[in-house]
């Protein structure tokens, strides 16, 4: 069955493995040929920051993982506007250039159109 699945990623890239686990779940969803969208909000925004140097803390950088998304046909990316603003960031600070910026009202609409939500 083909389902609309929204994966919400709300945690910072390092410090624990939640964001990485969300990423792995996204790839599995894509491999399983489901209709996947990804929403980055709260501290999840930090996953998208430019110039990450994760090797300094012996971690894998999110930048290279994000660049793999197009190869899995994961192209419906959403970024929560208020989360950006609360952290003093703009889209220019982020590595993704094909994401849709959505406000809280639009997120309600996005959620309403899914069969399932996976929250990380």
């Amino acid at each position, binding site marked *: *069955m*083909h*389902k609309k*699945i929204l994966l919400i990623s*709300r*945690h910072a890239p390092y410090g624990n*493995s*939640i964001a990485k*686990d969300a990423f*792995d*779940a996204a790839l*599995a*969803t894509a*491999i*399983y040929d*489901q209709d996947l969208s990804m929403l980055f909000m709260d501290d999840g925004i930090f996953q998208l920051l430019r110039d990450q140097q994760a090797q300094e803390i012996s971690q894998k950088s999110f930048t290279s993982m994000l660049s793999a998304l197009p190869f899995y046909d994961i192209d419906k990316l959403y970024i929560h506007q208020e989360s950006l603003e609360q952290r003093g960031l703009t889209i220019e600070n982020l590595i993704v250039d094909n994401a849709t910026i959505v406000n809280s009202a639009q997120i309600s609409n996005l959620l309403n159109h899914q*069969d*399932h*939500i*996976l*929250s*990380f």
Partner: protein
Amino acid sequence: MIVPVMIFSINVQSPPSSQASYSAYQFCRALLRQGHNLHRVFFYQDGIYNATNLAAPPQDELDLYSEWQKLSKEHSVELVVCIAAALKRGLLNQEESIRYNKAGHNLAEGFTLGGLGQLIEAAAVSDRLITFGN
């Protein structure tokens, strides 16, 4: 009120030291009591710690580890543990223990190791996928 029968799957992402694991278990019991179907319980992230057979909780606390096994036996519920999450946290079945040349294995009876695809398959075939934890 007549509730339509639905297929549920459950995604457990927190360890037994978290209330989320207990809530997940109680939710499973409740939905089965109401006549719904439980397709699969998937354990991801720290949720994999629910599947160890080496935990010895205090006797005056609910033994959640055994409760999962009872649930599985009574209702033929699949308990699937994410293999990648399990291996990196030191939860192994016999096969993986041999493969990685480890001293022992500790996956409790009733649980199986499986890929993340099993979580997505659960989403694909279920009317409701409920995540507990995080």
